């Protein structure tokens, strides 16, 4: 096992820039998740670490070894593909041992590793079967098994759960977490699903349009998103955003007004009169019967009742939709006019460029 370091990594195809100035440091044994919308460059980054895509600028170190010029086979990595990429004409055992033949591993050792991995992944009864006779979840376990037997320094996962149905996704997710604990291996995992990211990762790397937006632990990203993108990406349903401006500053209190929410008094720190800001509140932090300085409301257009939690979709005064999570059986009815409140600690404030303003200090970025 070893660590992984990516320094000032960039990737372009001709004039199209796919990745810009990526800096990332993964500790030995850490589970890192690269998450972001389609096209953000997460898969490209993973493939560059694997050696399947080339480096335009920057360096990649695996275990303190510069691997830029090395072929995938020389990097001591193993990759689990979204499509599983199992050899259709080989049975499960052969699929797992095929690559080992060429890395100089003795036959006896090969069998030992396969049996060990099969035991870990409960693949023993399937060893003689062919991929076409396996279910999606079984195929995925074989793909993982193929990676395990290579005993790599770093495991790479490219959206491994995307092709599974919802129930299978949950159970396989648990499997992967269990494997990580068992093997203690360094894992880099790509997904577009933020729930997978939140549940599996030691640290999450949020990416957007070829850049890293923020790196941090799940709860850090949830409670202290560094910018508008991370704030809107993490958490489901997404955070509610309100456009506003600073009306006046009086000492260390700023009065903020805007469409869709009531006037708000915030710590002034660094804010000037007239500054444009965005205010954000999560659906789960808005309450009806509460007092909080933040208020927003409107006419209820739709209520989604999901059991313990329901979601009310409210038409705000600025004509945008407000989504609020409501707990319990008492839910508002359609066409009710309701006002919601939230405490100051649950308010996120972002400046005109989308960066977080926290207590007036400059925006926070996770250090390398």
């Amino acid at each position, binding site marked *: 096992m070893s660590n992984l370091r990516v320094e000032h990594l960039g990737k372009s195809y001709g004039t199209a820039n796919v990745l810009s100035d990526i800096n990332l440091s993964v500790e030995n044994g850490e589970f890192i998740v690269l998450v972001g919308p389609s096209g953000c460059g997460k898969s490209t980054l993973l493939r560059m670490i694997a050696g399947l895509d080339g480096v335009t600028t920057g360096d990649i170190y695996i275990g303190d070894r510069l691997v830029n010029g090395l072929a995938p*086979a020389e990097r001591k990595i193993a990759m689990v593909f979204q499509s599983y990429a199992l050899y259709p004409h080989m049975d499960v055992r052969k699929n797992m041992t095929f690559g*080992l033949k060429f890395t100089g591993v003795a036959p006896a050792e090969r069998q030992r590793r396969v049996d060990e991995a099969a035991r870990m992944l409960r693949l023993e009864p399937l060893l003689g079967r062919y991929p076409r006779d396996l279910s999606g979840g079984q195929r995925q376990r074989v793909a993982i098994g193929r990676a395990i037997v290579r005993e790599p320094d770093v495991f790479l996962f490219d959206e491994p759960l995307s092709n599974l149905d919802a129930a299978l996704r949950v159970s396989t997710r648990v499997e992967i977490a269990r494997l990580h604990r068992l093997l203690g291996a360094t894992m880099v995992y790509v997904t577009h699903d933020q729930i997978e990211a939140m549940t599996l990762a030691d640290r999450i790397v949020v990416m957007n349009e070829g850049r890293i937006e923020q790196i941090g632990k799940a709860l850090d990203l949830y409670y202290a998103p560094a910018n508008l993108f991370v704030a809107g990406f993490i958490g489901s349903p997404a955070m509610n955003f309100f456009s506003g401006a600073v009306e006046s500053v009086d000492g260390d209190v700023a009065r903020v007004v805007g469409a869709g929410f009531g006037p708000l008094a915030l710590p002034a720190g660094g804010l000037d009169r007239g500054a444009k800001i965005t205010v954000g509140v999560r659906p789960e932090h808005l309450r009806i019967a509460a007092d909080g300085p933040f208020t927003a409301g409107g006419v209820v257009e739709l209520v989604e009742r999901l059991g313990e939690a329901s979601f009310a979709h409210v038409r705000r005064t600025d004509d945008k939709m407000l989504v609020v999570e409501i707990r319990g059986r008492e839910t508002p009815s359609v066409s009710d006019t309701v006002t919601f409140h939230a405490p100051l600690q649950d308010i996120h404030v972002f400046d005109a460029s989308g960066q977080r303003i926290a207590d007036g200090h400059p925006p926070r970025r996770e250090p390398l």
Partner: protein
Amino acid sequence: MFVEQRARSFAVHAVLIAYSALALGPILLVVMNSFKARNAIFGSPLSPPNSSTFSLIGYEKVFRASHIVVYFENSLIVTLVSMGLVLLFGAMAAWALSEYRFRGSTALALFLSIGIMVPIRLGSVAILNMMRTAGLNDTLTALILVYIAQGLPMAIFILSEFIQQIPKDLRDAARCDGVPETRIFFEVIAPLLRPAIATVAVFTIVPIWNDLWFPLILTSSDSTHTITLGVQQFLGQYITDWNSVLAALSMAILPVVVIYVIFSRQLIAGLTSGAVK
């Protein structure tokens, strides 16, 4: 409305049956009559052989007077070896063209596809000279080399299409697994090209088996003749001996028909899938 449909369906089947009769009729006629005695052939050409008219005299003659078995063997060798090598060399070339691209790959691919449209026969003068110089005149090897050259362009085209269908992830996984490049082709890619064999076979086997031109030009001695040439020469020689002629024709027809009927499903699937350009 319903009557109309019935009438239309009847008309469709009528046409198809009529044309099928036209397609199969001549063949049945020839084969049927090859088993009859001479006067029955002329007397009642349209009736099948019965106990009094049944005769194998034509077949005996063919076996005695010609080396039909040798011809058959030669055709078999030439066709199978050519097909095998066309598949092997064609698959390797198609793989290299799609995977190991370099400056000039496209030009090379274009160069190789010229042969699809341009008939190789036109260079026969030079081919014959080459074979004579190389001492390969009148050998099956000469035929095989020529047929490989003839079959490669189409085979490469068809195999390229199939190679595109193989998921790129498999190749990436093999590379991550540490599999050497040549092994990737022979052990990962090639086994997955099995469906392509039917398509390539249709376009390669039939023209080779039935070819008259190159055996005519490149083989002179009886022992290297292929079945098509052999039958043609036999027919020319024994043209008045109807029994033998019909028997020879039938012997040339029957293996093809049998193979065709057995493999017709794969054959037609191969033709229709490869034809969707």
